């Protein structure tokens, strides 16, 4: 069975906790492994923070729409925004060994999202609604992960 939820939040970092609360409310009983739930909550917070700080440049009152799709195999989260286009390819991978010595280690949030989620897809100016989106997928079963790796093998 598939379930869908939608959550809208303004571009304010003090509302980030409400996003976590929404995910716990929607997924808590349906994703029984705390470890997987933590991964999803951490990645979602990083994505929303990036949208607020970078896509919306910290301006308040803009909107972020979060669509959550859940089925026994996976959790799919899509964040839509109307802010600046954000090209993840242009953000260098952080040099983790130098994180302690660098003044402002950048790219940690993106790195965390990529490490915790099984798939991350960015879309710019969607043809249907003109919005930018970031979709992340977390597979809940080993079969789901296998399908994903087969799909990406085929795509190569």
């Amino acid at each position, binding site marked *: 069975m598939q379930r869908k939820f939608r959550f809208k939040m303004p571009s304010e*970092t003090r509302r980030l*906790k409400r996003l976590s609360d929404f995910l716990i409310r929607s997924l808590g009983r349906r994703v029984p492994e*705390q470890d997987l739930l933590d991964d999803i909550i951490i990645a979602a917070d990083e994505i929303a923070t990036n949208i607020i700080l970078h896509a919306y440049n910290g301006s308040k009152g803009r909107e972020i729409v979060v669509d959550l799709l859940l089925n026994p195999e996976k959790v799919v989260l899509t964040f839509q925004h109307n802010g600046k286009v954000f090209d993840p390819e242009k953000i260098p991978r*952080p040099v983790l060994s130098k994180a*302690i010595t660098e003044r402002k*280690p950048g790219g940690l949030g993106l790195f*965390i999202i990529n490490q*915790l989620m099984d798939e991350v897809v960015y879309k710019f100016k969607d043809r249907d609604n003109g919005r930018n989106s970031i979709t992340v997928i977390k597979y809940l079963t080993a079969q789901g992960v296998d399908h994903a790796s087969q799909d990406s093998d085929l795509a190569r």
Partner: protein
Amino acid sequence: MPLKTQTSPDNPDVVVIYLSGRLDVNYSLSIEDEINKLIQQDHIKLVINLQDVEYLSSSGLRIFIATSRQLKIKNGILKLVKMPDAVKKVFMVVELLDMFEVFESNEAALASFKK
């Protein structure tokens, strides 16, 4: 956000800092500033107790990175206590866990300063 801190009579030069709640982009900078003030006052042996931390983001991680950097300049040391699993996960993902000494209790962390 004022920091909750504690010193013990046995180790008066070590300051134990208690962090709690969500260490996200909203609070990280102010916490970093408060800890930095301690370091500027020459408190350079610090223990951070994480028992009541609910959540840590990459912004929160910068508290520990910045504190370590400041302490390194002053030949100080930072030790961490009671790291919750969700917090440990973030340290592990960014491969920073090995860069910190983590203890199961304040007592164990304080005792390690005497070695």
